[in-house]
């Protein structure tokens, strides 16, 4: 019998174009996603060397980082406009399919890939964006690359990559009611730190992962990079196959049946070994809130903000002190007492239909606290349309949320959706770095439910206490 293999080993072995002693492998790339911010210099590089795009049919572009989410066609920032125009010109010149700002397929690149069925198990997928790890939810090997590598993939459809080490993130038990995939990934990063995944591809396994929906799995894999891992994935199963079935770019008919069989065969074999393993009990995970300036600075909503005195080294102590100062918080303060000014529901982490459905359930019939400005930014035009069909837009608007067009928006505030200096935002995005949502802005990462609850209450609150059934 063959040696049992992990899904990473299987995908890798299927994609090696060339191998040499003491060199990385030359790896074939099945799908290259492109957006306006990290591609212009790559296309310019091609032109300077008179090179073409090897496989425009394996390349797909959209505009997401810079696009306005309100007054769609008034792009006040000329530099942003130039960047978007440049993408359009580059896609025209090199014959690359583009979902531009007016296209019905437009959206955050990591939302539309799966939506269109471009993302499939077993594929190697890259994009000049670190959250490309999202696509790993489908059992694809997907990772972020820099602009030089974008140019390399455009020219050759390959990348030189050293075979990665594998790390099994084993999630035992089941998540409790009101506890989400976002809370789980935040709890994992809080427990093991923001660099435990460096040099590894993470594979999420265990009962809790198997029972998650595809959208929840995307939230988990999305934040692999916040643990230091370029890629994180989940072995494909029936849930994966059901999601892909019928999507525009998915195989059809008997081709689909054959593909589904191949996809299932990719799952990690019983007895396969990993280079490392970490474990967490899902049952013990509570709703999470970050308090600091990296995603590992995170506590359960019932906890209080840590003190620099709890640190185990001088450097860690400095790091906590600096974070508290930037965030304008006191050690020992219960996180639930922290008042917020903004709520952002969106980003490639949490802007899919089910995210919006769950947030809408919380705000239905309630009002956003008068001290809070709250916006919902669907991950794609298609998510927006589906949500409107269900009337979610009405629920949000009646509660006092703004209902916007699709884009990356306030996750990184490259457009006009900026949190002002010193103000505090409960955000469903992925990074609470200094200045991420605006210079001097203070970000707290939470699940869509927790963000919705905070919008209503004006401060953080355990969402499980809000969702007790009303007596009939």
């Amino acid at each position, binding site marked *: 019998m063959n040696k049992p293999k992990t899904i990473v080993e299987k995908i890798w072995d299927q994609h090696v174009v060339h191998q040499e002693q003491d060199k*990385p492998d*030359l790896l*074939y790339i099945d799908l290259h996603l492109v957006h306006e911010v990290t591609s212009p210099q790559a296309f310019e590089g091609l032109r300077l060397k008179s090179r073409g795009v090897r496989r425009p049919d394996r390349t797909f572009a959209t505009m997401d980082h810079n696009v306005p989410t309100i007054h769609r066609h008034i792009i006040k920032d000329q*530099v942003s406009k130039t960047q978007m125009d440049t993408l359009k010109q580059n896609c025209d010149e090199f014959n690359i399919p583009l979902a531009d700002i007016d296209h019905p397929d437009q959206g955050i690149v990591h939302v539309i890939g799966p939506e269109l069925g471009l993302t499939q198990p077993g594929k190697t997928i890259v994009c000049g964006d670190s959250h490309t790890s999202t696509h790993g939810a489908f059992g694809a090997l997907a990772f972020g690359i820099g602009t030089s590598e974008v140019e390399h993939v455009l020219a050759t459809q390959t990348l030189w990559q050293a075979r990665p080490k594998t790390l099994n993130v084993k999630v035992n038990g089941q998540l409790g009611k009101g506890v989400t995939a976002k809370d789980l990934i935040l709890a994992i990063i809080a427990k093991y730190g923001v*660099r435990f995944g460096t040099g590894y591809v993470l594979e999420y396994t265990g009962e809790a992962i198997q029972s998650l929906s595809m959208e929840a799995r995307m939230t988990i894999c999305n934040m692999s990079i916040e643990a230091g891992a370029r890629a994180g994935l989940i072995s494909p199963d029936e849930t994966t196959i059901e999601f892909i079935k019928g999507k525009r770019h998915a195989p059809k008919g008997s081709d689909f049946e054959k593909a589904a069989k191949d996809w299932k065969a990719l799952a990690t074999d019983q007895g396969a070994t990993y280079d490392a393993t970490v474990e967490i009990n899902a049952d013990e995970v509570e709703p999470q809130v970050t308090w600091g300036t990296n995603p590992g600075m995170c506590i359960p909503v019932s906890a209080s903000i840590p003190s620099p005195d709890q640190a185990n080294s001088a450097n860690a102590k400095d790091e906590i002190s600096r974070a508290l100062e930037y965030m304008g918080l006191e050690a020992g303060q219960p996180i639930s007492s922290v008042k917020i000014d903004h709520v952002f529901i969106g980003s490639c982490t949490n802007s899919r239909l089910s995210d919006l459905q769950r947030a809408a359930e919380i705000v239905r019939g309630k009002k956003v606290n008068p001290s809070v400005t709250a916006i919902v930014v669907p991950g794609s035009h298609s998510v927006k349309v589906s949500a409107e069909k269900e009337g979610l837009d009405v629920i949000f608007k009646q509660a006092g949320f703004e209902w916007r067009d699709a884009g990356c928006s306030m996750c990184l505030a490259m457009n006009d959706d900026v949190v002002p200096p010193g103000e505090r935002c409960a955000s469903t995005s992925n990074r609470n*770095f200094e*200045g991420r949502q605006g210079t001097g802005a203070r970000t707290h990462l939470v699940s869509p439910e927790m963000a919705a609850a905070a919008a209503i209450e004006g401060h953080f609150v355990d969402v499980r206490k809000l969702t007790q059934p009303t007596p009939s």
Partner: protein
Amino acid sequence: MEPIRKHTGLVYPLNRSNIDTDQIIPKQFLKRISRQGFGQFLFFNWRFDSEGTPKKEFSLNDPKYKDASILVAGENFGCGSSREHAPWALQDFGFKVIIASSFADIFYNNCTKNGIVPIQLTEEETQVLIDRSESDSYTISIDLEQKTVNGSDDFHASFEIPEYQREMLLNGWDEIAVTLTHKSKIDQFEAELQQSRGE
């Protein structure tokens, strides 16, 4: 890409861990479509106040580091966003070598594509370099062929770097040109894909 074999330069210490690429170059400066001119935005929110005045308390504004070309920092340098604008900004500002006790994967890779040498030393070694360059003007030499770092005093360290990346940096190769020497293998791989999966 310019080849780099040896470099001697002044050390700038930045004694922090988990410096993310949002700090190295904030997002409002990612909108340019060229690779040049990002140095002026390096560590922008740390270097300048809201009026655009240099912050005295941020050490990179100290004139004694004006000619620094080697940055030394704590662990997990360059984490977060994949933006290659981060190494472009560091390089444009004048940094040729980055030393840290560990690096984020994408940033490390991005450095080697731009002729910046990323050097991982132990926490103890990094701390020595930080302490010495904080208290005094401190010059070190790096040798990519020998894989060594030598101070102007008794500091000596050696480092590891993947052979492929070392060769790239030493020779300043155009990686795409190297890959295209394997074009027939890529053609063959695609032909097999077409046959097996109809793609």
